[in-house]
Structure formats: structure tokens, C-alpha cells
């Protein structure tokens, strides 16, 4: 069981190194997803399956997709159509594919052991987390709700483009 932990940790470190050394943002995000998945496997081995699921859903799902949306909205000039054809060459996806195959084989091995025997420590299941979250930490939950509200309002305020009012007689309109 020690070995699965070390392999997943090594995959996480290697993919994070690849993230900070890529020049193309999309390639870096591909490796970032692999890094998050490796950390999810580490969380599962450490006995935190709920945190592992949240890592996949929110980090690898929501946050990375949000960053990809923004990159597509920016519509960077140097990334033209012919470069998009070059993106799908094998050397782009072979690295992430090898790392994810390592993670997949590890996951299959852990599942084949059955039950919680793939977990090193004691499993802290969702029930305890929920009881703790809505018991002693209820103030923190409310504060994080307020934080998310502030985030929504801030993102809307910052992301809004200022509407430029062009008056027909006072200002010359470029045609």
C-alpha cells in the first residue's frame, strides 16, 4: 500500500513540473488536470474519499473548465487555425496519457483489492465530515457562503465591459 502512495505522489510532482515549464497554456492545463487527479488518488489512499471526489469535481472539473473558457474568450491572436491543427500531434497528449494510464492502473489495482483495504489509514467517511461541517463548523459554512456571494458580485463587477456611449452629434463616429 505504501507503493501506490509513492507512485501517485511521483505522478503529481512530475505533472506539476510539466505545468510550470510549458509554453502553451492549454498544454499546461492538460498536465494540471493530471496533477489534480494524482492528488485525488493520494487523498483516497490517505482515507479521505469525499475529499478525493471533491478534488476531481471542483478542481479538475469546474476550475480548469473556467480557465479554459477564459482562454477561449481572450481569443489570442498567435493561436490561429493552423496552430490548432498542430495541437493534436501525438507529442502533445502522449505525456498526460502515460501519466493517467499509471493512475488508472493504480486505481484498478486498489479497487481489485476490494473495500477499504486499499486505504492506508483509517477511513474518515462522508458522515463524519457532514456532522462536523454542520455542527461545530456551521459558522465557517455561513462565512464561505458569504465569500462565494462576494466572489460572484466581484466577478460580475470586474468582468463587465463599460458601455461606451457614442453621441451622434457631439462625437465623430468612425465609419
Amino acid at each position: 500500500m505504501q507503493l501506490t502512495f509513492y507512485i501517485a505522489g511521483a505522478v503529481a510532482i512530475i505533472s506539476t513540473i510539466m505545468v510550470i515549464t510549458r509554453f502553451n497554456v492549454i498544454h499546461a492545463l492538460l498536465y494540471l488536470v493530471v496533477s489534480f487527479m494524482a492528488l485525488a488518488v493520494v487523498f483516497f489512499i490517505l482515507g479521505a474519499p469525499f475529499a478525493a471526489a471533491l478534488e476531481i469535481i471542483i478542481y479538475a472539473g469546474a476550475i480548469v473548465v473556467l480557465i479554459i473558457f477564459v482562454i477561449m474568450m481572450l481569443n489570442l491572436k498567435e493561436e490561429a487555425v493552423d496552430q490548432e491543427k498542430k495541437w493534436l500531434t501525438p507529442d502533445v497528449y502522449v505525456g498526460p496519457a502515460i501519466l493517467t494510464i499509471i493512475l488508472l492502473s493504480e486505481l484498478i489495482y486498489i479497487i481489485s483489492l476490494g473495500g477499504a483495504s486499499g486505504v492506508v489509514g483509517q477511513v474518515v467517511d462522508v458522515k463524519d465530515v457532514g456532522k462536523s461541517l454542520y455542527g461545530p463548523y456551521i459558522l465557517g459554512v455561513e462565512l464561505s457562503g458569504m465569500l462565494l456571494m462576494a466572489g460572484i458580485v466581484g466577478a460580475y463587477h470586474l468582468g463587465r465591459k463599460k458601455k461606451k456611449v457614442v453621441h451622434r452629434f457631439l462625437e465623430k463616429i468612425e465609419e
Partner: protein
Amino acid sequence: MNEIQVTSGLLLAAALFMLGLIGVLIRRNIIFMLVCVEIMLNSAGLAFIVAGSKWTQPDGQVMFIFILTMAAAEVSVGLALILQIHHQLKTLDGDAANSMRG
């Protein structure tokens, strides 16, 4: 859960945090800087999970959920700022934002 596992888990968290810090320092593209901040937050969450697993208490996972919430709010505001900087300065260079006025 033996001591070696806790030590190596915390070492993994420290290594990921240092990689994120190095990424913030060496990259000038602000999208990369945001991604590296995400990596650092994630490694902090890993440290909480390791500690919660050491004492088999749910508090570590609760703290991880709070970090997750904070990261989600941070990335939305940060991406809105990136959109605004790209709209105003027509570049993604982080150094170009030092001439920001008002």
C-alpha cells in the same frame, strides 16, 4: 497510518507548494501565475488532509472544503481581472500591469 506516511505526505505537500511558488516567480503570463496559485492552494489542502488522516478526525477534510471554496471564489475574481487587464492593455504580460491607473 505510520509516521513515514505522514512525513512523506507532508513532503509531497511541501514539494508541490515550492513548485507553485517557483512557477509564480519564473512565469510572467498572468494565466500561468493564477494556475500556480491554484497549485499552492491545492498543496495546502493536501497538508490538511494528511493531518486529518493522521488523527482520523474529519476536521482536515472540513478545512479542505473551505480551501476549495476559497479557491473557487479566488479563481473567478482572478479570471475577471485577467479579462479586464487583457481588455485594457491588450497583453497577458504581468509586468505590463504596473502602469495601471485608477
